[in-house]
């Protein structure tokens, strides 16, 4: 389905973010990508849809190489890959529905998208997806009016609206509280299974990765240092990925995190925060 062949990325500053990364993702597999900050997780994901240009190697999506496509063909390739972002990356001032429909931009003409005249099929699909992620009542709200978890659900709906063959997910839970993070991960894995959709999910939370994904790839300094089932991930491999640390403590912390959820939607508005100054 997706095959990376010695993918390399060297930034203009000379830093080597990826160094000959190769792996295969078969259809329907959810891959968790873990590793310390700066290990190249984000770069790896962005090299696949070429938001970052790889400097070497090949990316094969269903046996077609995406690394040498021209602009038009690159756009075609991008619409086959849905992407979900760390800070949701919704267009804050657009409505939820516009954000979901923006997943169709690769398929419709500029003028159609400019006047928001999407084909009825796209609109039906968008409503169905909003129902799937539990946001049917929010279609006409601005994205900025939603809580973090709700925003990420819209992000998932936008990616699925593309009818993707692959999901690229960059730290989907980094800005969420532990409970919402689990709900989002569960939702992501469910939709991937429903559609036998392969996904690459970068995560900094090892426990979350172990809990949900089918396979874990550990990156360190741009190289794969672990590739296997979540159950094979033990203290020794974690030390190899992240460096020395007492990994046995982790399980207790996870239980504590489950209970410490922060309420969202209760943040003070800008006016309220500035009121004290007047």
């Amino acid at each position: 389905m997706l095959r990376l062949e010695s993918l390399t990325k060297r930034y203009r500053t000379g830093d080597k973010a990826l160094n000959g990364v190769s792996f295969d993702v078969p259809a329907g597999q959810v891959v968790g990508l873990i590793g310390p900050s700066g290990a190249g997780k984000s770069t790896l994901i962005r090299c696949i849809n070429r938001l970052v240009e790889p400097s070497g190697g090949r990316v094969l999506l269903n046996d077609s190489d995406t690394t040498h496509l021209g602009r038009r063909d690159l756009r075609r390739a991008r619409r086959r890959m849905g992407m979900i972002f760390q800070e949701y990356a919704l267009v804050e001032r657009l409505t939820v529905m516009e954000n979901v429909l923006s997943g169709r931009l690769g398929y419709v003409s500029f003028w159609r998208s400019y006047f928001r005249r999407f084909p009825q099929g796209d609109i039906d699909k968008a409503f169905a997806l909003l129902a799937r992620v539990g946001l049917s009542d929010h279609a006409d709200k601005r994205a900025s009016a939603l809580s973090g978890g709700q925003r990420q659900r819209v992000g998932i709906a936008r990616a699925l609206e593309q009818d993707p063959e692959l999901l690229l997910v960059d730290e989907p839970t980094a800005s969420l509280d532990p409970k919402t993070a689990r709900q989002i991960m569960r939702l992501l894995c469910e939709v991937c299974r429903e559609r036998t959709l392969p996904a690459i999910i970068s995560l900094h939370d090892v426990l979350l990765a172990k809990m949900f994904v089918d396979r874990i790839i550990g990156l360190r300094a741009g190289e794969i240092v672990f590739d296997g089932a979540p159950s094979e991930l033990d203290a020794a491999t974690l030390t190899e990925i992240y460096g020395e640390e007492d990994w046995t403590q982790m399980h207790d912390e996870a239980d504590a995190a489950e209970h410490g959820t922060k309420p969202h939607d209760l943040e003070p508005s800008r006016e309220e925060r500035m009121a004290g100054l007047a």
Partner: protein
Amino acid sequence: MSTALAESRPWKRPPLIRNAWLRWALYLGALVYLLAALNSIEVNWERVSEGLAQGWSFAQGFLAPDFLTRSRDIWRGMAESLTMTVTSTVVGCLISVPIALGAARNIAPLPIYVVCRAIIAASRAFQEVIIAILFVAMFGFGPFAGFLTLSFATIGFMAKLLAEDIEDINEVQAEAIRATGANWWQVINYGIQPQVLPRLIGLSLYRLDINFRESAVIGIVGAGGVGATLNTAMQRYDYSTAGAILIMIIVIVLIAEYASSHLRKWVQ
């Protein structure tokens, strides 16, 4: 916590300039320059006392404004000014949008960026009055020269500030749109336009306000509008009419001020 109590020591905010000698030399130098500069201003007190009388009669005219005697001239000037203001703001804003897109480094390629920045610099290099003198020489007296002047000045102002706002957008939102396979125009329309639209509207309203005030100034050099009426009244020592015109300008600017702050709150 585990170690013993650290010994207490005083703390002061570190000064901006660390070298004490340099710091005091700079303060002293600035003070000396300021005193010398103030000393170099020559004031002719006789002329001032003469002028105070003139100023007083002007102020009296202002306190007793005469809207009626020259009402036809005043209304014609006002209508002309408002027409100039609205048309030049609309035209200037429309032209400034594509230039702003080209002048934003994060979305435009380098050659286009250089050209658009040059246009902005050219428009901003000259004060409105200087451009007005040029256009009056080219197209003759009247509001057309004023309209061209204000449009030209609007382009530089709007394009510069809008381009800076585009450079400050949250790039991730545009990146997400790009990742869907959207083309350049779609990225602009979905990823960037929603982020800068409130600022675009706010700036246009602010520029409308500026253009109205400028229309009163460039009228003095012959570019039409209420400035021409004001100039005539001043030359005739008709301070009551001048006062009436000034009051009307103040009222219109005030209305524009309140209206635009309301509108800006609404588009946020």
